[in-house]
C-alpha cells in the first residue's frame, strides 16, 4: 500500500474539510465510548482482569522463543504446518506457495490487519489469484479500492449512501431499480453475493486473535460469521498471525478474551469465538484438508528488550483510537499507513521508519485517554514520547519546532522562570480568550489552532493551584 504518513499534515487538513468523513466519524465519537464504559462498569472484575491480561502477555514476551517452539510442536502434532516468516515478503511467498500447490484461483479472506500489513491482496492479484474480502466492512472498502480506516471497523469512514452507490456499481447482475435505502437491505445483498464466493473458494485465509501454545490452536473472534465460513469451507485454511499473538493456555486465553470484546465494541462476548486445531480429522464430515499457520515477525522481535516491548501486548481491540481526539478529528486514513490512532502512532514509525512517520507520534494531545482505556495497559503516550525523542535526536523535526522545544526545555529547567512564564502566559491567554474561554489562535501553535480552539486556562497555573490546595 502507498505510504502517505509523511504527508500527515496535508492528510489531516483534507480530512477536516471532508464533510462525508466528518459525518461518518460522528458514529465513532458517539458509539464506541459509551458502550465500552457500560461494559466495563458491568463487570466488577474488569480492572483486575486487565492487570492479569497484561501479566500474561508480559510472561509470554519473556519466554516467547519457547512458547513459539511449543506452539509449532502442537500444530505439527495435529497434522498442521507452521511456516516462519522474518519479513513481509517471506510471508507473502509462503502464502503464494500454498495457494499455487492447491491450484487456487480464488481465495476468501476473513478480516485481518496482518494481511494488510504485508500487502497481501495486491500481491495475490498480481499472481492471478483473486482475493475476496468477506467481512462486510472489508468487502465494501475492497470494492472502493481503499484500505481500512479502523482496525475493527474498516469502513467506519463511510456513510450509507456511499455504500449504496458502490453496491449499485459492483452488483450489476441485480435489478438496477431495486430498493437500497436501508442498511439491512445492503447487508442482505452482500450476504447473497458472498455466499457463492464462500462455497467456491479454493483457499481461505484468516488472521488470528490468539495462538494457544498448550494446544496449537488458532483463534478468531468475529461477529458476522464470515471468518468461520472462510476457514471451514475451502480445502485449505491459512492462518496468518504475528509472533506476539501467543498465549500459554486455554485458561490464559479466556482471561484476555474477557477484556477484548468489552474494550472493542462494548459487547460482553463477540458472537463467534472459534478455536481451530489442525486440519479435518479422518472422521470429520467437514473442515479444511490442510491447515497452515504463517508466523510473521516483520521486526517485532527487535522490539523485545527495548522501550517498545510493551506494544507487543496489543490485542488490536481499537479502544485507543475510539477514545482518541486526534482520530476523532481526522479518521484513520490520515495516518497514512495500515495502523491508525495511538497504537498506529507507535507502530508505524517502527515499520516504515521514523523519518517517514515522525508526524504521527507528534500528532497527539497527550491527553492520556488511550492509555486509560487500553485493556493491556500499554503506556502509549510514553512510547510516543520515545519516538519524539528519537526523532529529535536525529534532528528530523523542523528547525522552528526544535528551537521552540529547546527554548521550552531551557525555561523548564529553571523553576522560577518557568513559573513566571506560565503565569504570564496563563493570564494572557485567559484575557485574550475573553468570555468564550476559547482561543482561536496561539502565537507559537498557529498550525494547531487553525482547525480548533484552545480552551483558555482558568484559575492560575497548575503549580499555583497545587500549592493552594495543600
Amino acid at each position, binding site marked *: 500500500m502507498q505510504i502517505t504518513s509523511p504527508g500527515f499534515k496535508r492528510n489531516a487538513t483534507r480530512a477536516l474539510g471532508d464533510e462525508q468523513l466528518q459525518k461518518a466519524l460522528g*458514529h*465513532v465519537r458517539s458509539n464506541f465510548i459509551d458502550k465500552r464504559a457500560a461494559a466495563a462498569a458491568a463487570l466488577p*472484575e474488569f480492572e483486575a482482569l486487565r492487570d*492479569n491480561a497484561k501479566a500474561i502477555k508480559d*510472561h509470554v514476551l*519473556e*519466554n*516467547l*522463543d519457547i512458547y*513459539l517452539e511449543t506452539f509449532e510442536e*502442537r500444530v505439527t502434532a495435529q497434522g498442521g504446518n507452521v511456516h*516462519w516468516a*522474518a519479513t513481509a515478503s517471506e510471508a507473502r511467498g509462503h502464502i503464494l506457495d500454498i495457494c499455487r500447490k492447491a491450484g487456487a484461483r480464488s481465495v476468501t479472506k476473513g478480516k485481518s490487519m496482518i494481511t494488510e500489513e504485508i500487502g497481501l491482496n495486491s500481491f495475490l492479484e498480481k499472481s492471478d489469484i483473486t482475493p475476496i474480502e468477506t*467481512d462486510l*466492512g472489508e468487502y*465494501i472498502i475492497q470494492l472502493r479500492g481503499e484500505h481500512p480506516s479502523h482496525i475493527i471497523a474498516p*469502513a467506519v469512514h463511510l*456513510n*450509507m449512501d456511499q455504500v449504496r452507490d458502490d453496491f449499485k456499481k459492483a452488483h450489476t447482475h441485480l435489478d438496477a431499480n431495486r430498493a437500497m435505502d436501508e442498511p439491512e437491505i*445492503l*447487508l*442482505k445483498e452482500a*450476504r447473497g453475493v*458472498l455466499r457463492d464466493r*464462500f*462455497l467456491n473458494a479454493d483457499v481461505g485465509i484468516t488472521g488470528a486473535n490468539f495462538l494457544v501454545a498448550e*494446544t496449537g*490452536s488458532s483463534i478468531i473472534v468475529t461477529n458476522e*460469521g*464470515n471468518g*468461520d465460513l472462510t476457514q*471451514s469451507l475451502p480445502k485449505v485454511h491459512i492462518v496468518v498471525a504475528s*509472533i506476539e499473538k501467543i498465549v*500459554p493456555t486455554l*485458561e490464559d486465553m*479466556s482471561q484476555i478474551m474477557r477484556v477484548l470484546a468489552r474494550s472493542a*465494541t462494548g*459487547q*460482553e*462476548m463477540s*458472537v*463467534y*469465538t*472459534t*478455536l481451530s*486445531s*489442525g*486440519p*479435518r*480429522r479422518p*472422521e*470429520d464430515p*467437514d*473442515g479444511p484438508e490442510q491447515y497452515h499457520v504463517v*508466523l510473521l*515477525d516483520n521486526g517485532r*522481535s*527487535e522490539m523485545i*528488550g*527495548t522501550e517498545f516491548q510493551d506494544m507487543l501486548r496489543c490485542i488490536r481491540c481499537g479502544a485507543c483510537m475510539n477514545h482518541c481526539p486526534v482520530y476523532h478529528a481526522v479518521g484513520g486514513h490520515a495516518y497514512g499507513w495500515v495502523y491508525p490512532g495511538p497504537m498506529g502512532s507507535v507502530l508505524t514509525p517502527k515499520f516504515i521508519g521514523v523519518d517517514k512517520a515522525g508526524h504521527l507520534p507528534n500528532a497527539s494531545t497527550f491527553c492520556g485517554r488511550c492509555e486509560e482505556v487500553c485493556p493491556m495497559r500499554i503506556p502509549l503516550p510514553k512510547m510516543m514520547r520515545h519516538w519524539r525523542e528519537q526523532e529529535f535526536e536525529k534532528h528530523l523535526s523542523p528547525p522552528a519546532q526544535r528551537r521552540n522545544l529547546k527554548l521550552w526545555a531551557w525555561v523548564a529547567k529553571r523553576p522560577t522562570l518557568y513559573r513566571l512564564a506560565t503565569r504570564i502566559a496563563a493570564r494572557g491567554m485567559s484575557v485574550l480568550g475573553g468570555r468564550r474561554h476559547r482561543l482561536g489562535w496561539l502565537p507559537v501553535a498557529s498550525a494547531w489552532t487553525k482547525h480548533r480552539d484552545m480552551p483558555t486556562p482558568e484559575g492560575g497555573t497548575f503549580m499555583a493551584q497545587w500549592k493552594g490546595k495543600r
Partner: protein
Amino acid sequence: MSREFILERIKSRQKVDGDDSDRRRAVEKRIAEHAPGILPAVPGTRVKRLKQFIDKAEAAQASVSRVSEQSMGKALVEWLRDHNLPAEVRMSPDKRLDGLRKQAEKKLTIKPAPGDGSDIVGVSHAECGIVETGTLALTSGPDNPTTLNFLPENHVVVLREKDVVDHYEDIWPRLRKRFGERKMPRTLNLVTGPSRSADIEQTLILGAHGPVRLHILLVRD
C-alpha cells in the same frame, strides 16, 4: 532459516544467557497446570445461574425455550411454525438428538447434516452453555458438523441443563477429559447470539453471514 533467525533474535533481545532450562521448566509447568485466573462472580444458586444463562443469551438476541426430554419435538415444530419456517430441517447425527428426531419425524422432514449451503434450518447439539455470557460451546466432528453452525439462516441448538457451566474455564477440563491433555477437537465454536454486523454507519443488524436467528432448546434434567 527464518525459524532460527527469529528465535535467535528473540533470545538475544531477551538478554538471557545460553542456559534456558529454567525458563523451559517454567513454561512446561505453566502449561501442565493451566491454572484458571480471575473468574467473574456468578449467582449463588443453580436456579439463578440458569436464569442468568437465559437472560444473557436473550440479551445477545438469542431465544430460549425450556423443554422437557419429551417435549423437545413439539417445541421445535412450534418454533418453526411461529417463525413461518418450512417443516424441513438439517439435523446433526449426534445421538443425543435421537429423542428429538423420533418426536419430530412425523411432522418434519429431517435431513442428515452437513448440508450444501442451501438449508433454511439447522439443528445441532451443544457441548456446554456458559452462564457468564449466555454462550454456547459446540465441538466439531462427525456428530456435529461445524458448517451447520453457520450456513443455515436459522440455527436451533439443543442444550442440556446439566451441561450449563459457569465460566469458559469450565469448558477446558471437559475437553481435556474427552480428547486428552493438550488436544482439541478440530473446531470449537463459542457462539453468543445470532450473527450480526455494524459495519454500515454503526447500525447493528442481525443476520450477517451466519444465522439470522439462534434458538436454544434448554432441556430440563
